[in-house]
């Protein structure tokens, strides 16, 4: 191998190495435009202001939403109260009828065993009848008949009388005799129709 060639190659490698070092250092040695820090800081400050205003906006939206929710709840409650005022009144205070009935109503009369058993039988649900029908029938239709009329004093007395064992027959018997009495006629006499003689009447006139 020629020593001059070897030296030339070594020199060339060294030159290339130096060139590469210099180029690579230059490659990474870049400077930004002047004022990069201040531009970044200004951008950050603008972003902070934007975030703060967005936060305030979210607070306002949250407050409005809470107010709307509260108003809706209050409105729904008020609406339901207006829709069923009688029910609320019934549950809250007794009516005049109830008070009157309580004052008139005597102590509960013992119902005889026969009558009670008949009532129980009547109240018993048939086997094939569904339970919800009974429930529907048992609840009063307050929307159609808003005020239930309680029994008057006379009606209560009549019910009491009917509940007594001898009262029913006495009442029915009294009614039957009165009806028959109305139909009976003490003295009815129907006389035969008398037709006057025609000839005699004519001669009289002539």
């Amino acid at each position, binding site marked *: 191998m020629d020593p001059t060639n070897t030296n030339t190659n070594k020199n060339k490698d060294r030159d290339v190495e130096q*060139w590469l070092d210099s180029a690579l250092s*230059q490659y*990474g*040695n870049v400077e930004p*435009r002047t004022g990069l820090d201040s531009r*970044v800081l200004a*951008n950050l400050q603008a*972003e902070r202001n934007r975030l703060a205003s967005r936060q305030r906006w979210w607070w306002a939206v949250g407050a409005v939403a809470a107010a709307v929710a509260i108003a809706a709840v209050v409105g729904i409650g008020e609406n339901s109260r207006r829709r069923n005022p009688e029910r609320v009144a019934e549950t809250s205070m007794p009516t005049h009828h109830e008070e009157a009935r309580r004052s008139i109503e005597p102590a509960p009369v013992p119902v005889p065993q026969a009558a009670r058993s008949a009532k129980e039988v009547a109240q018993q649900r048939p086997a094939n009848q569904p339970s919800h029908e009974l429930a529907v029938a048992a609840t009063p239709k307050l929307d159609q008949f808003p005020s239930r009329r309680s029994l008057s004093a006379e009606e209560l007395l009549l019910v009491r009388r009917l509940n007594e064992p001898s009262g029913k027959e006495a009442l029915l018997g009294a009614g039957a005799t009165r009806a028959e009495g109305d139909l009976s006629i003490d003295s009815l006499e129907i006389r035969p129709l008398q037709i006057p003689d025609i000839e005699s009447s004519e001669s009289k006139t002539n």
Partner: protein
Amino acid sequence: MVGEALNLRQKALAQNEEDLLDTAVREHARLVYRIAYSVLRNPSDAEDATQEVFLRVLRYGKKMSGIDDQKAWLARIAWRVAVDRRKSMAKLAGGTEEAGETLVAPGHGADRVLLEQERSATLERLISALPGPLRDALVLSTLEEIAPREVAVMLGISEAAVRSRSFRAREILRDRLVALAESRTESKTEPRTGPRT
């Protein structure tokens, strides 16, 4: 009273965080810019990436006071932001990554400027032709502010791997430069046989 004290403390903490971020901008904006430039090779894109790095820190970042090594932390964010931008730019450009502008140091004579421009352009071409892992390790190693340990953390590899990749990248560059120089020498010494087309 307790609420006011808490409020004041929160305000003081927020102010402290703001001050820390502002200090980090003043101290490390240049490094962030250089990292972004080493990837993007364009001053405008590098500045945009720098802005994005600090905006990310402001929006999503952890408390600056809880970061041990702010420089390495910001360098990692800058690297990720720049690589993401490069990918999106490559997608927009149809899959080809354009070479950045040539970098010329001001204050030199015209012949020197021309020489450096040519050198920068040549080096840009050669580096962009390197395989991705070698190129990343070499590019980050050229930044004097970043130690090989920090480069290893940024790339997610060991420090030895960083050194090895940088060495291999330099070897490839040297071989290509030698080949380039030889081809130029041959083209200069060759006699002209006919008119240029």
